[in-house]
């Protein structure tokens, strides 16, 4: 009888193993790679609200409309952001060509001056729109820039996640991304990040990102977008909230949106 028990147990384990989701065997790096790809949308139209809160609880609210589209087989994402409110910055536009392998190109158009300024940005660690989100947070980084380690599994808001540590391979990468270590919680069901803890260049706890809501925007290709992101700066006590009010998957966004000519047409 003892023998049977062992056989049944072994068989049971095997069945469990086989029927479990296929990503069980993924390495940390593969998980992160899939997570980067899970949010890459061929094209989209978005209305969102950015709330920037300082350490005394004072708020700055910006409503923005944006369109995005992937080019070069997904290696380049072009984005056009237009400010809708407050009234004094209404019409201000930001055009970004986000390249995978080199520094981004950025242009800002200021309607009150009818002038477009090129923004030279080599640092992805810079804060976006004065918020706690950095440019690095807005777009997935280069996969090979980091080493990955699967630390375990943990639930975040009742979603089971992998807990993965990302460490920049060298100091230049750390400087560029603005962190020395990031612990990321990636959901097993959709590969979207649910939580991330950032450690600054001195190794101290710096920021914490929580993703409250995720939406499958492109069901055909299983592409997702976070709808509600909160970034808390644990050192300065500031906080930024980015909420997507409306999102429309659209791979056929007009190419002419992504030109400085269109940027200035306001």
């Amino acid at each position, binding site marked *: 009888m003892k023998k049977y028990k062992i056989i049944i147990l072994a068989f049971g384990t095997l069945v469990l193993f086989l029927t479990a989701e296929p990503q069980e065997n993924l390495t940390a790096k593969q998980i992160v790679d899939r997570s980067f790809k899970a949010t890459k949308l061929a094209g989209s139209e978005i209305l969102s609200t950015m709330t920037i809160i300082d350490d005394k609880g*004072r708020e700055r609210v910006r409503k923005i409309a944006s369109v995005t589209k992937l080019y070069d087989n997904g290696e380049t994402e072009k984005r056009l952001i237009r400010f809708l409110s407050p009234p004094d910055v209404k019409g*201000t536009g930001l055009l970004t060509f986000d390249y995978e392998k080199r520094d981004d190109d950025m242009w*800002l158009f200021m*309607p009150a001056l009818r002038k477009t300024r090129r*923004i030279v940005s080599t640092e992805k660690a810079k804060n976006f*729109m*004065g*918020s706690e989100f950095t440019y690095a947070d807005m777009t997935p980084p280069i996969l090979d820039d980091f080493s990955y380690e699967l630390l375990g599994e943990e639930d975040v808001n009742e979603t089971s996640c992998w807990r993965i540590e990302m460490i920049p391979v060298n100091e230049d990468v750390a400087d560029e991304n603005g962190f020395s270590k990031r612990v990321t919680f990636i959901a097993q069901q959709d590969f979207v990040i649910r939580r991330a803890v950032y450690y600054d260049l001195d190794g101290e706890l710096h920021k914490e990102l929580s993703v409250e809501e995720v939406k499958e925007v492109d069901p055909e290709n299983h592409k997702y977008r976070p709808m509600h992101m909160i970034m808390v700066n644990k050192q300065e006590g500031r906080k930024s909230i980015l909420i997507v009010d409306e999102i429309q998957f659209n791979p056929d966004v007009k190419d002419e949106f992504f030109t400085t000519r269109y940027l200035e047409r306001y």
Partner: protein
Amino acid sequence: MNDKDEEGYDRIPDTRNAVAQYFELYSMSGDPDDFEKMVDFPYEHALLTARLNTASTKKMDHVIDRLKEKTKNDQDVRLVGGFGSILSELAHKVVNGQFLSLGLAIFVVGILLMILFRSVTAGLISAIPLAISITTLFGLMGIFRIELNVATAMLSSIMIGVGVDYTIHFLWRFREERQSGLDSKEAVIKTLTTTGRGIVFNALSVIFGFIALLTSSFMPVRFFGFLVVVSITSCLIGALILIPSLCIVLKPKFLEPREIRV
């Protein structure tokens, strides 16, 4: 705005929107707390800093008063202030406090002398040399344009404390001599040749001690030394020349030998 060749260089843009959009441009590549010390978070109040290249509180007061006057009815101006304002306020406080502490010092010393010699006249007489040296002190400060600051303001109080010694020494000995039967003139001569010597040596050692400060290269210390020397000298002159003369001329009652009534 920031480039020299550009139109509108070194100027604030004309419209509110342009300013807001420049802020937005900056925030695209700056740190969120870059402007923390210059403007508040909702961009409602800014800190405008002006540099006053003067140390004169009079001029500072003038500038601050004019500013306050001009912005009196402006709802948008929260506060006019800064280090210059603090400095001028401090100077006012020191000068006003000066008069109070001077008056108080003379008053207290006078009361003490009245108790010591059991006479109101004693208090009044000993206040005379003090009043003269205070006048000398402030007069000289005025002539040499020495600023009344925290250090020099303390001087007059120190001077009252040190200067009154000589008068007390003199009066005490003089009364003793009178009681032992000498007349006023003889008593003055006796006192000056005995206690008077002690007083002179005392004063000289203080004076020479403070002369050392005159070699200082730090101006406030040098002024301090100079003023101590001058005021101690004037106290000495008061105690050794003025007081004896008054004793001879006025023959105050408290110094006269007490008649034993039978």
